[in-house]
């Protein structure tokens, strides 16, 4: 048994026992919940890219922007027209009710919590978050690279849909 990963923000927490097997099982369950709630597409995106994207409802906003959701890191807002980075929203979901288990949700649960909060009440989540310029937690070059990976992933998805429709 190792110690660590119990505190908020991924910092080790004294007194919290880190059990890799337990954490792995929790992550498997968390991914199942992600699939059940956010859908197969979101599950595949997280599995293949390591992050999720949320875009506001088309009818709700004229603005073309979106959010990259990383596990236990900031939410990165981006301009969907040119891929420029707008801001970072630092937010976590620490659970203080069971110190033995630590405060940190499994990675997929953290991603799903952000997805739920953004799709359910974007304004409320952003109000609770601390806003920073890009680069606070997520390297801007990595975020730009992830946006390129996202575009390629979505282009491949569209190609596959067209092929299925034609078949």
């Amino acid at each position: 048994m190792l110690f660590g990963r119990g505190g908020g923000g991924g910092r080790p927490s004294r007194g919290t026992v880190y059990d890799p097997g337990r954490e792995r099982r929790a992550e498997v369950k968390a991914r199942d919940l992600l699939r059940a709630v956010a859908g197969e597409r979101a599950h595949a995106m997280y599995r293949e890219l390591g992050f999720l994207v949320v875009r506001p409802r088309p009818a709700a906003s004229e603005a073309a922007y979106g959010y990259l959701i990383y596990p236990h890191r900031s939410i990165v807002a981006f301009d969907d027209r040119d891929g420029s980075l707008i801001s970072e929203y630092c937010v976590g979901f620490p659970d203080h009710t069971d110190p033995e288990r630590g405060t940190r949700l499994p990675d997929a649960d953290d991603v799903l919590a952000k997805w739920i909060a953004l799709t359910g009440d974007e304004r409320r989540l952003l109000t609770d978050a601390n806003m920073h310029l890009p680069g606070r937690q997520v390297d801007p070059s990595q975020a730009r690279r992830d946006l390129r990976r996202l575009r390629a992933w979505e282009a491949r998805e569209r190609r596959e849909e067209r092929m299925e429709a034609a078949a």
Partner: protein
Amino acid sequence: MKLVRMKPGHGDVLLAEGDPEVAEEEQELIDAFRRQLDQGMWAAVPTRGNGGRREAEMVRDFSEVPRDAEQVIFFPRAAGGQ
């Protein structure tokens, strides 16, 4: 209807399950719902928007949960980070 909660070291755990149309089971769901809110949890119901788009609806009281909802998900409230 199932009430589930995200938990560190667990993944999701089932808190309660019942038919809200059955009075006794509805009360158990309401009690479980309130306990989670008392612990500072947020609650959300998965939904389908226009075109089947997956979304979630945040709820603050059991009365806001659609009667036909299959699942209510609880998770710790958001806290601003560094």
